[in-house]
């Protein structure tokens, strides 16, 4: 599969770079990150709070396939229209420390744009654990689905 998203994660560093080109103008890309109405749709989350401004903050609530709530939140340090967002990100109630995110929005043409996110973690280990997380989560969820299927079989 040809993925447009590039991840740069050098071994031994406590940061990663995520970059992608979009077939939408930079203003829409920025809007997708700063307005609750759009964030809710593409992040598949409920926006409890979002103040996209300097010294702002946000808090999201996401429900996993088991129906359990997870909360994500952070402080928005700086928000420069159609250019950049600097914020922290934290998964509440987990052992993962908050991370610092620098997002840079750039126009490529009138209709295309680029987003680069630099994420700085507390330590190299925290970064590596975070990189492994979707894999672990995928496995867990697959396991839970399997468990649910087996339970159905039992009761049938």
């Amino acid at each position, binding site marked *: 599969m040809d993925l447009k998203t590039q991840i740069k994660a050098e071994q031994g560093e406590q940061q990663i770079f995520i970059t992608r080109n979009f077939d939408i103008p930079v203003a829409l890309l920025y809007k997708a990150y700063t307005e609750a109405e759009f964030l809710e749709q593409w992040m598949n989350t409920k926006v409890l709070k979002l103040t996209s401004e300097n010294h702002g903050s946000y808090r999201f609530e996401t429900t996993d396939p088991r129906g359990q709530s997870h909360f994500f939140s952070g402080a928005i340090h700086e928000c420069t229209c159609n250019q950049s967002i600097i914020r922290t990100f934290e998964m509440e109630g987990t052992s993962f420390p908050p991370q610092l995110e620098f997002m840079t929005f750039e126009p490529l043409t009138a209709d295309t744009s680029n987003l680069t996110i630099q994420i700085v973690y507390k330590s190299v280990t925290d970064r590596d654990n975070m990189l492994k997380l979707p*894999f672990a989560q995928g496995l867990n969820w697959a396991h839970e689905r399997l468990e649910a299927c087996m339970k159905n079989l039992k009761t049938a």
Partner: protein
Amino acid sequence: MNLRRDVFQAIADPTRRAILTLLATQAMTAGAIAANFDTARPTVSKHLQILTECDLLNKTQEGREIYYAVNLQKIWEIEEFIAPFRAMWEERFSKLEDVMKNFKNNS
């Protein structure tokens, strides 16, 4: 002493990544590989040794020459480590693009 090293440490070095790229399409001898770099031959040999220890390269003897080739299985394992993370972001970003395109077309 077992000198097997971490694969990610091996690919963290730019010269070693360049060697892997060089060998991606063909097997080459140490001399032919070294000819592509400004670094001293022993330095290139050291890099080849590390890559071989990590199973990133396979060595095969053909007559008097030793050829180095990329071990694709091992490369695949590295890609797999980060693949789910990348796929997660790709999924999110594709959704973002769709949502905003819809908004653009309907406004």
